[in-house]
């Protein structure tokens, strides 16, 4: 089972410079945990372990194929072989 994960420039320090890595899992949360096992520290950049329950960080955009996972089920979003997950840090400021 293989899901392609596209990594933005700023997170490539966790992937030895790779702009794309592969992982497995049946939900986005599981996929991220799987990536963490090979790319330590990546999970903390994506997930806020938080007080109540873990959630995707607010200013990181994660997309499953073309959809923003905020409009799906966040970390519980089901993922499957052949999917592409894209991570883009939000561009924002004040």
């Amino acid at each position: 089972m293989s899901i392609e994960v596209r990594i933005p420039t700023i997170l490539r320090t966790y992937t030895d410079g790779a702009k794309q890595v592969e992982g497995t899992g049946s939900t986005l949360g599981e996929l991220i945990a799987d990536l963490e096992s090979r790319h330590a520290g990546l999970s903390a950049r994506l997930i806020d372990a938080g007080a109540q329950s873990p959630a995707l960080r607010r200013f990181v955009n994660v997309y499953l194929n073309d959809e923003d996972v905020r409009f799906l089920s966040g970390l519980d979003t089901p993922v499957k072989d052949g999917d592409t997950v894209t991570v883009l840090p939000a561009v924002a400021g004040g």
Partner: protein
Amino acid sequence: MLTISRDLYDKIVAHAREDHPDEACGVLAGPAGSDRPERFIPMENAERSPTFYRFDAKEQLRVWREMDDNDEEPVVIYHSHTATEAYPSRTDVSYASEPDTHYVLVSTRDEGSTEFRSYRILDAEVTEEPVVVME
């Protein structure tokens, strides 16, 4: 140093003026590794605020994918300040996430003139750089 054509400089200023008093934001894409801004991509400010900006997530995916397909990268990310100076705020610094990008700040606080300055933001450190406009 940021080298930018007069045409792109004027387009950024016009965008900032048009959206004032909301902050305007956008990207100048250029060939990957060239450090040359070529393509003007004004973005929607999903916050529509006079003090905050955020690229709409869906639009950002489309634009970033397009740049990838064109072998381009975001050479410049610009936004405007509508009441303060053209200098990165603490918020701007904390969200800066493209290490190779020139961050352009424009200020529209003065009706008569527009400030246009450029910076690198790396590891939370701001370094101003000269802007060279090619006529």
